[in-house]
């Protein structure tokens, strides 16, 4: 039990990271190369933080509003962004992250500038984070098994094939953007209420890289991928305490090595290996019977 108490902040961080990874996962699964998760997270966090500190509204309202704001931002941005392709989607969303960062830094009357929003009531605990992650996991799993999930997979693998099968690419990209914005908004709002204070620079390039690393390492197809990626990359710094100053080197190396040697991520590679083995075993028993 003491183990559990000592590491509670770490568990909370892992769950927060898992939510962020889900937000990144859903767009990558649909073949959208959006890096906008950090921007949506900032929107959700600031929405919840400002509502709680400046207007004194209850936390659940802030969290709902943050989620909604993320979703609405996702819908609005998806209209222009769904027109763009791969690298250009990445650049446009990168610009979005920078614009949101500039606004949170410079709109001092609302966001308190570089000092950030402070003394947000801490009302979100480990149990709430667990519930949120469980709900989002179920939601994404259900979507993944529906026709939308299959359409996502086809679009990611080959857009031309998807179009020839009558799948509307912009429509599915819009769905993916909206889900991504919603999940990131939820994650940001929960994080604001779990950590007392938020500052603009948390939601910059560093978060973007970390979230991307989690999904690349974990895997982009199976729902378990982002969770595994988030757990590995959250616990890695704790395991590598000895190399504290080289933490970012390790993170960069993980990113490079996994995209070079494990391009589909840990979970998807493991799943396809298991499937191949099962198939092999199946044919072997059939042959033995015959």
């Amino acid at each position, binding site marked *: 039990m003491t183990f559990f108490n000592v590491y509670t902040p770490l568990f909370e961080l892992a769950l927060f990271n898992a939510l962020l990874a889900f937000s990144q996962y859903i767009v990558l699964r649909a073949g959208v190369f959006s890096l906008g998760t950090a921007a949506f997270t900032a929107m959700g966090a600031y929405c919840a933080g400002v509502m709680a500190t400046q207007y004194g509204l209850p936390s659940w309202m802030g969290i709902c509003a943050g989620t909604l704001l993320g979703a609405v931002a996702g819908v609005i941005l998806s209209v222009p962004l769904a027109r763009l392709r791969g690298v250009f989607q990445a650049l446009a969303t*990168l610009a979005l992250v920078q614009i949101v960062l500039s606004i949170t830094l410079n709109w001092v009357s609302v966001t308190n500038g570089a000092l950030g929003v402070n003394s947000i009531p801490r009302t979100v605990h480990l149990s709430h984070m667990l519930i949120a992650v469980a709900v989002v996991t179920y939601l994404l799993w259900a979507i993944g098994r529906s026709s939308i999930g299959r359409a996502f997979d086809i679009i990611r693998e080959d857009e031309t094939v998807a179009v020839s099968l009558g799948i509307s690419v912009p429509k599915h990209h819009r769905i993916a953007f909206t889900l991504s914005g919603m999940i990131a908004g939820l994650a940001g709002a929960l994080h604001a209420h779990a950590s007392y204070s938020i500052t603009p620079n948390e939601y910059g390039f560093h978060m973007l890289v970390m979230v991307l690393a989690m999904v690349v390492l974990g895997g982009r197809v199976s729902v378990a991928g982002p969770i595994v990626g988030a757990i590995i990359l959250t616990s890695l710094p704790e395991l590598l305490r000895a190399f504290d100053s080289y933490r970012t080197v390790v993170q960069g190396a993980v990113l*490079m090595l996994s995209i*070079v040697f494990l391009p589909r991520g840990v979970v998807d590679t493991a799943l396809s290996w298991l499937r191949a083995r099962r198939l092999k075993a199946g044919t072997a028993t059939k042959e033995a019977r015959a």
Partner: protein
Amino acid sequence: MLMQQLLNGIVVGSVYGVFALGFTLIFGVNHIMNMAHGAVFMWGAFAGLYAVTMLDVGFPGALLFGAVGGGLLSVLLDWVAFRPLRKRGASDFSAIVSSIGANLILLSLAQQLTQTRVMRFPFDTFPIKVYTIFGLRIQLLQLVIVGLVILMVLGLVWYLYRTSYGRQIRAVAFSEQTSRLLGINPVAINFQVFFISGALAGIAGVLIGLVFNSVHFMMGEPLLLRGFVVIILGGLGSIPGALIAGLLIGIVQTMTVAYISAGMADAIVFSLLFLVLLFRPKGLLGGASAAVRVNRQ
């Protein structure tokens, strides 16, 4: 005052242009968005600085070391981060992820090396001379920078359009498979492309380090982000586009800092990128082929 800011904008913008030229060259030939280009720029500045402080080579030596250092690092980067992916025929996505990883490694190594200090070129690296022309104060350094940028651009254009190597580079940019059939070795071409673009970034690093009189491990990041804006605004793979857009971004930025507020410069520059992607995705000078790559039909 206005003319003075315009002049400062042109000087900074021309360096942005040089940085973006290397960026757009790699994109044009390999279709890779090299997120580690900012780190190459930073290490180029470091190479120049260490050459001045340790070997006492002066300004030309700093440029030379910056160029060679940046070029070699860029080739190494290609070897480690992009070659394995190219062999596998991986997507654009993999290249971006891999170069983000390389960028992180290069950044934090630089941070360890300098212990997060901000370093400066020695006072006498470049003679401080100020000329006054029509009430404008022009430093000798600014004149030299603009001159150097013009020289480098002319050199690059000559190399790409007037030599056999340049023709091979353009052939590979058009289609790697076809150029293989014609007996061109893409490995050698990639070596040249990455070396040239790294050398341009390294020289840009030394120049920016001198202009702002500071060299530190984070100096590449703002330039990388500006580099995106420059190549999108100018049109992909377009050399004049990169230069014009570089100048434009330099001027917009200095004007915003001077007349609106320093904090708003980023918001304005990136809103510009967003708007260009929405309304004119092929950029100011991009051809029809660029538009096909950007937009889905």
